[in-house]
């Protein structure tokens, strides 16, 4: 018997989740492509706790049921995230598609998830018995594989409060709207007093999961721009090693070339 539920409180949702499993549904813009007739859904869009956007001392916190339009319109949303959300699909999709769904769909092409990866964001997972926080990088186990237990719901995405002003973001789709990323790249470089305090990059639509080569980016952290410049070739060679595109709609060579071009440009515009 196919049954779907639309709870209005998180407690109720968690109870239903534990009892029936159910397919979590927050927007449905990915799920409706599959349109499985025998699926039972747990609709999460009516739960106020999952729609909040707020901040505390450490994080900017986005409820998982927030739509891309909610984020675009909110003053707390960092610019890099607004820019990425603004390039997702088209207004109708942005008005209903959610960040929780974007992450939960488990696709390496998820455009908001790329920004949550490059910012080393966390997900707050809740169930009837409690909750846990997980770095998003650890939440992704593989293509369409998540570290989400059968009784858990993604409740929040938490972006660490840090300097995100100096960012680089490029989405390459087959057209300017209603296009799934063929390659997406995000980079963050926090430079203060000529010293790189933080460097982070992430690559979407390349591998089974969004790539976030933190150990390579660490090569540049703590360095002056001049020192970083001297490391440029080593850094690029290391990035080259990790960009191993899997087969997709567009060629492997194409996606690799584009990734490397964008990383080079990221360094160029920052004088590295």
């Amino acid at each position: 018997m196919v049954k779907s539920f639309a709870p209005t409180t998180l407690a109720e949702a968690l109870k239903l989740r534990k009892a029936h499993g159910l397919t979590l549904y927050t927007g449905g813009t990915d799920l409706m492509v599959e349109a499985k007739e025998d699926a039972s859904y747990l609709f999460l869009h009516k739960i106020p706790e999952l729609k909040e956007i707020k901040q505390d001392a450490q994080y900017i916190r986005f409820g998982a049921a927030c739509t891309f339009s909610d984020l675009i319109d909110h003053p707390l949303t960092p610019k890099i995230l607004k820019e990425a959300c603004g390039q997702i699909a088209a207004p109708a999709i942005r008005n209903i598609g959610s960040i929780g769904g974007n992450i939960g769909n488990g696709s390496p092409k998820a455009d908001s998830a790329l920004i949550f990866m490059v910012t080393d964001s966390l997900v707050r997972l809740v169930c009837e018995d409690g909750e846990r926080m997980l770095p998003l990088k650890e939440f992704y186990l593989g293509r369409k594989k998540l570290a989400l237990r059968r009784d858990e719901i993604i409740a929040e995405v938490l972006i660490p409060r840090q300097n995100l002003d100096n960012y680089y973001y490029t989405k390459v789709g087959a057209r300017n709207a209603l296009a799934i990323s063929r390659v997406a790249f995000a980079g963050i470089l926090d430079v203060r007093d000529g010293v790189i305090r933080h460097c982070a990059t992430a690559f979407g639509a390349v591998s089974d999961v969004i790539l976030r080569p933190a150990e390579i980016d660490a090569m540049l952290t703590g360095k002056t721009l001049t020192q970083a410049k001297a490391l440029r070739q080593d850094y690029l060679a290391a990035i080259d090693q990790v960009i191993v595109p899997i087969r997709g709609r567009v060629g492997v060579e194409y996606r690799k070339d584009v990734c490397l071009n964008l990383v080079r440009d990221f360094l160029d515009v920052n004088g590295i």
Partner: protein
Amino acid sequence: MKSISRSIPKKDHGEKMRGQAMYVCDCPTEGILFGRMVRSSVPRAKVANVKLPTLPDGYCYVDKNDVPGTNEVLMIVQDTPVFAGETVEHIGDPIGLLCGPDEREVLRLAGEVEIEYEMLEPTFDARESDVVFFDYAYEKGNTAAAFAQADHIFEEDFETGLQEHMCMETNGLIAGSSDGKIHVHGSLQCPYYVHKALVHALGCRPEDVSVAQDVIGGAFGAKEDYPSILACQVAVAAHKAGKPVRVIFDRKEDIECTSKRHPSFCNYKVAVKDGKVTAMEIEVLYDAGAYTTMSPVVLQRGIIGAPGIYNVPNLKVHGQSRKTNNVPNGAFRGFGGPQTFFAVEMMMEHVAKNLGLEPVDFKLAHLAKQGDSTSTGGKYHFPVPIAPMVDAVLKASDYRAKRAAYQNQTGRYRKGIGLSAVFHGGGFTGSAERDLLKSVARLHKDKDGNVEILTANTDMGQGLFVAFTKIVAETLDLPHDKIILTMPNTDRVPNSGPTVASRSVMVVGELIRRAAVRLKDEWKDGEEQTVTEHYKHPEFMIPFDIKTFSGDAYPTYSWAVNAVEVEIDTYTGAIKLVGGWGSFDAGTPIDENILRGQMEGGFVQSLSYGMMEKITAEKGKIRNNTFSDYMIPTAMDLPKLEILLHVEDYPGGPFGAKGGGELPHVGGAPATIAAIENALDTKLGKAPFLPEDVMNHLREVNR
């Protein structure tokens, strides 16, 4: 502009915007059977056995054995079966149709039909095929001598790909019987094509069949030949089941299994003497797919236009369309023209570059002019307005300054601009309007002075009803609301021919104009009156012989000059359309807004044919079968296109109108590729050219 050109609101806007228009999928389904096609999953095989699941009461399976007449879809050549015979020839070839009252159950049961195949070797590349469906050739002058005396000889290959129509509405038809008659209605461009096909397949009399059009959500040729196939299938099913049967394709089925634009492979050899092209030797090859459908006439139009708009004194043209085990290719806006016009425009571009000349000037120096002979030894009876049109487009686009500025670019973003000049011949090729179609159109006046237009022509969004209404209203000096025009039903309308080939306004519009002139002369208040007009072949035409390809292929030509500007991101390969300018001559516009809309829409379709649209198939299986995988441009991908209308009246068309529908889809791709060439400082020979191709090119250059 003449007074008739002043725009009026389209008659179908209101009901479409309010959601009241009845498409075939909106028709009530009580008592109807849903049908799902059982299709071949392999590209070529003998069908050894078909094992059906147990069918519940009220469900039935229909195949070749149920066709009461002949298991052939009547087209130009009778090789398309209603349902596959002994063999299947492409993935998606229909083997049978499973029908029943519950749509989901029908889908389930159709999925459980087991087909046993004995595999046969398929061919997917037309160049490797040894089955030649059609082979045409013609010559003019003395090419051998011209090549012998040439200063330079240049030779190049060109390729174009498949293009899918991407109508908002997929193919769909309903068949049923009442009063001892089979009725078919739905999404179709050509009611009488379908009518004739039904008579042939059902083995019945013409009066035993009626065909009606429902509101159509886009066609572009997709609903020219294909509905004849689907109509025979649903009619056979309705005949067997004794109940109405409806088949409406989902998007995947529509993309994977219905016709597309023929891929082409062309070879051009050009002789140049004293800086002028003296001869061309042209080889044209079109991939027909598994059955012939419209391939002969598509190829004819392709080879007739092969030397473009230029006066080439010595010409040798050979064209073939060959069988492959791909989906059969059929009608698509431009109908064989876009492929060879792409090749010849690129060839002229490259010859000019080889000679160190600006391509636009080189092209202008070779233009045919009024009175010159055409490729087939016919005559350009009317002015060739390309020179002033090029002038207008050069000015509007600032082409020359940009072309000069865009030399030797090295930065990340590189700009380019390109220009093409093309024609489209209105109406059927050669004498087919006279010998095959013999169109008839009728006007009927009631006692209150309302005049009904009776033709078989269909409005599929292109605005035909507005055009026909205005032609009759203007001629009779009546307000538009005194003119009645409804969707055609073959029970009521005479055969005025199909709504294809940019012929409806020029040919049928002229018939109803003449009928209106007669009705005005004979007008009697308070009486019912009927006026019927028959097609008259233009007397000035030099008779066309399809065997030798000699004479006037078309009475007149519509002309287009397109310029396209792009900006290429060499980091990502992205090709951004920066500007598009088009000057179009389709004679007098019957409605300026509608003509502009046609020109913009066709221009866009042609641009994306050049730089965006690509079918990805593996061993005959089309992979990109959705709107999210088969790319067509959104509004976000397009610059504001500047549409200029040039008017050369055609005395044989109503109020001077010529063919307009296909004209804008001929020249966009070569202008786009020329712009990409300009940006990348290279020569290219294929369309589409995509971001991946840009990056491959840059990788080669940097190597």
